[in-house]
């Protein structure tokens, strides 16, 4: 049991679990995992003590622990009503989770190409790999997800298959009239020499606080290529703590771009293991915070074998009284020679009262490596602002242009046209809020 343990945070989730007693078991194997996960969670509780707790040093989870949630939902969502508010294209393989439950019925029959199959939790084979990457006792929130998970999907891409259309998974919470928690789960298996694109988006239609604790496990086989996009944009009263675990085999390629804004507390854990030689992984992210939001990015890449390449490149824009964390870690294990790794976190601070805590760390146990990292934090360059104004732009337009310019480098990483446009629009919509919560800083 950790030194600082808050039993009341365990009780809250224990009570929540009690409300689910009548739900039928998902099978003996799963019950075993759930038991391991509960034992783990009940020994840690919500990590409220931050001093000395490297994983939760800067993010204050008290607001989460003070809020109660329910698991019952009775409202539904009509997709047609929200297509303009989510990343969406009729040409994609669209998959919908409403209030944490997979809803294959809501979008009509999926027209899946050969080599791509999707099974849900009601099908037994789905569970075979459950928890193989996100172990039930590998962290407080992976454990909570395992305890409460009720529904999820397993996506399998057969070897030598190129899936042309993106697989678009939307996690939406309907207009539930109360606090509400969801624990969705996705397992993706990309076969040898296959290629695919996956999008995950998290949105909420209610203004009540919602808690989303998703877990996504991605297994990539030899020479598999996956482009992964993650969009977190729930309402500003909500809490989002997501875990993504990726295991990569030889010569596979994983490219991920995340966009995070919205919740009161957002947390994005991405752990990638480069388990065989010549694998590459590039993680990009853009986080925008305002008001009193907290956004925490816990990004880790492990080079276990030689000749792998990895990159972490994140950018943050902070306004109001918001705080953000970038805790990046690159580990090069003993014997992982010829590793190349690069890590960068750049931040734009728009107002007094913001706080950025950035920790780009490297742990290197092999000598023949090239690793570098960098971090910056600063405000809008007044010379650039002056330059634009001298060309006839008014102050606000010039400032908006510079904020937008800072974000652009990350927005272009969302390579799909529809997605690029969606994120661009989202950022454009946020910029006036950012400006209204920004200060003019510095002297010319």
């Amino acid at each position, binding site marked *: 049991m950790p030194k600082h343990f808050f039993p009341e945070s365990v009780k809250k989730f224990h009570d929540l679990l009690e409300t689910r007693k009548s739900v039928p078991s998902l099978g003996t194997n799963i019950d075993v995992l759930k038991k391991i996960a509960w034992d783990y969670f009940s020994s840690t509780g919500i990590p409220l003590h931050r001093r000395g707790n490297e994983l939760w040093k800067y993010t204050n989870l008290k607001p989460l622990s003070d809020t109660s949630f329910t698991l019952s939902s009775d409202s539904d969502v009509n997709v047609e009503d929200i297509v303009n508010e989510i990343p969406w294209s009729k040409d994609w393989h669209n998959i919908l989770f409403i209030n944490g439950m997979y809803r294959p019925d809501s979008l009509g029959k999926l027209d899946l190409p050969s080599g791509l199959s999707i099974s849900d939790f009601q099908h037994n084979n789905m569970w075979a790999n459950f928890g193989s990457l996100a172990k039930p006792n590998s962290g407080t929130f992976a454990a909570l997800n395992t305890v409460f998970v009720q529904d999820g999907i397993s996506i399998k891409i057969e070897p030598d298959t190129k899936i042309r259309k993106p697989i678009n998974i939307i996690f939406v919470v309907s207009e539930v009239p109360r606090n509400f928690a969801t624990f969705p789960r996705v397992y993706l298996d990309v076969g040898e020499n296959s290629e695919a694109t996956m999008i995950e988006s998290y949105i909420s239609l209610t203004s009540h606080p919602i808690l989303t604790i998703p877990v996504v496990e991605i297994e990539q086989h030899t020479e598999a290529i996956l482009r992964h996009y993650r969009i977190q944009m729930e309402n500003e009263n909500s809490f989002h703590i997501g875990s993504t675990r990726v295991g990569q085999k030889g010569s596979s390629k994983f490219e991920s771009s995340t966009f995070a804004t919205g919740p009161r507390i957002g947390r994005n854990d991405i752990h990638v293991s480069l388990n065989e030689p010549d694998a590459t992984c590039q993680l990009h992210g853009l986080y925008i915070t305002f008001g009193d939001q907290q956004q925490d990015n816990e990004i880790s890449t492990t080079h276990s074998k030689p000749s792998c390449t990895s990159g972490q490149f994140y950018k943050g824009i902070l306004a109001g009284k918001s705080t953000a964390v970038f805790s990046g870690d690159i580990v090069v294990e003993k014997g992982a020679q010829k590793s190349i790794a690069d890590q960068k976190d750049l931040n734009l601070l728009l107002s007094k009262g913001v706080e950025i805590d950035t920790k780009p760390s490297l742990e290197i146990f092999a*000598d023949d490596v090239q*690793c570098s*990292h960098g971090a910056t934090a*600063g405000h809008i360059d007044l010379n650039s602002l002056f330059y634009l104004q001298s060309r006839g732009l008014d102050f606000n337009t010039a400032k908006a242009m510079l904020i937008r310019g800072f974000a652009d480098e990350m927005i272009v990483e969302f390579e799909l046209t529809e997605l690029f446009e969606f994120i661009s629009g989202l950022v454009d919509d946020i910029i006036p809020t950012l400006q209204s919560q920004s200060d003019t800083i510095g*002297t010319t």
Partner: protein
Amino acid sequence: MINKNNTISRKSELSNKDYKWGFSTDVETELAPKGLSEDIVRLISSKKKEPDWLLEWRLKAFRHWVDLEDKDMEPNWARVQYPRMDFQDIYYYAAPVSKKDKAPNSMEEVDPEMLEAFEKLGIPLNEREKLAGVAVDAVFDSVSIATTFGEKLSEMGIIFCSFTEATQKHPELVKKYLGSVVPYTDNFYASLNSAVFSDGSFAYIPPGVKCPMELMTYFRINTEGSGQFERTLIIADKGSYVSYLEGCTAPMRKTSQLHAAVVELVALDDSEIKYSTIQNWFPGTKDGEGGVYNFVTKRGRAESSAKISWTQVETGSAITWKYPSVILKGDNSVGEFFSVALANNHQQADTGTKMIHIGRNTKSTIVSKGISAGKGSNTYRGGVQIMPTAENATNHTQCDSLLIGDQCGAHTVPYIQVRNPSAKLEHEASTSKVSDDQLFYLMSRGLSEEEAHHMIITGWSRDVIKELPFEFAIEASQLLKVSLEGAVG
């Protein structure tokens, strides 16, 4: 309870020709019994004829430390591994006894064997050092034995003496500034030091005075099984300047020795303190036996327009746990940290700095070079904090690591916390090995592989070495060479 005239005459127990400072010296040593208690704290205080307020302060520190020890608060976050320490198995007081059992009044009264020891160390304590132009305070085990140039300095109003002497002759200064930068509650080892510190150096530079020579302290642990807990306090009054050097060695011993020092720097308005360290405590044998555990708290406070600069070359110690820091309290104050840390064989270093920006227009620079070889582990752990009040603060950090061999580790853990948006902050770092192309080039010009490595490493560390005073720079470069012997090829 004092075990007087206990002559420690054990010869160096290990043969390790790579560490040439590993001799031990036969001098009579006064030892207090092993272990730590309030009685020991009182004993140390009474031995030092300290005023009551200082004893009280020590006791408060001791009680705080006991509390931390009870709560198991010994820091465990650093990337270093060592067996749990038994704090009751350490001598907390070991003083060389001069023949007349009193502090020496002049150089002639200093134990000749001890002088010989300092000769071996290359510390000129007698007349010759006039040429070197360095004022030396030598601390043997935990007691300051001789301070040179005291008279010349005192003409200018500069006080440079042992800490004990300062508590007797300048109690008002000590009382005002002791614990003002590193309070006794600061951390586990600082609390321990505050309770049992036995001596150290004290320097005070009066307003507007530029100290005409470098002040230097040489620390040496001689007695086996003893800890060294020295305390250094340097105060640069308004508009003054001082450059201070610190060197450290210890004999080779099979058992590990604890060194838990505290250094406090106070730089008042417009003053400048330059603090340079060459740390060459015994690093342990090639197989990782013995060596000094160097757990040190060093911190300075810079008032308005003041500057504090830390330069360190760390080649010794089995374990280094050390983060010389600067609190940039005053507006326009400047903090600098230049470091070369080397970890060879089984050495473990977790070192870096902390720059805390509080005042407006404060500026800090960090340049850290870590070299890992053999089975060594080297971690840079740095913190840059920009407080909400620190308008227009700037920081530039560069930390580079060099790996020699595939059994070592090099880690970089920078913590950057910005709470004022007007801050400008840059951090960059790289990790690599010595490039084959560079080696090939130098070797094709006739250098051996080892010479080529040394040349590349010297060039690579140049940004830091050039910050050192001239004599120290040469020593540092030699130390790097010696410490890396056998690591290449």
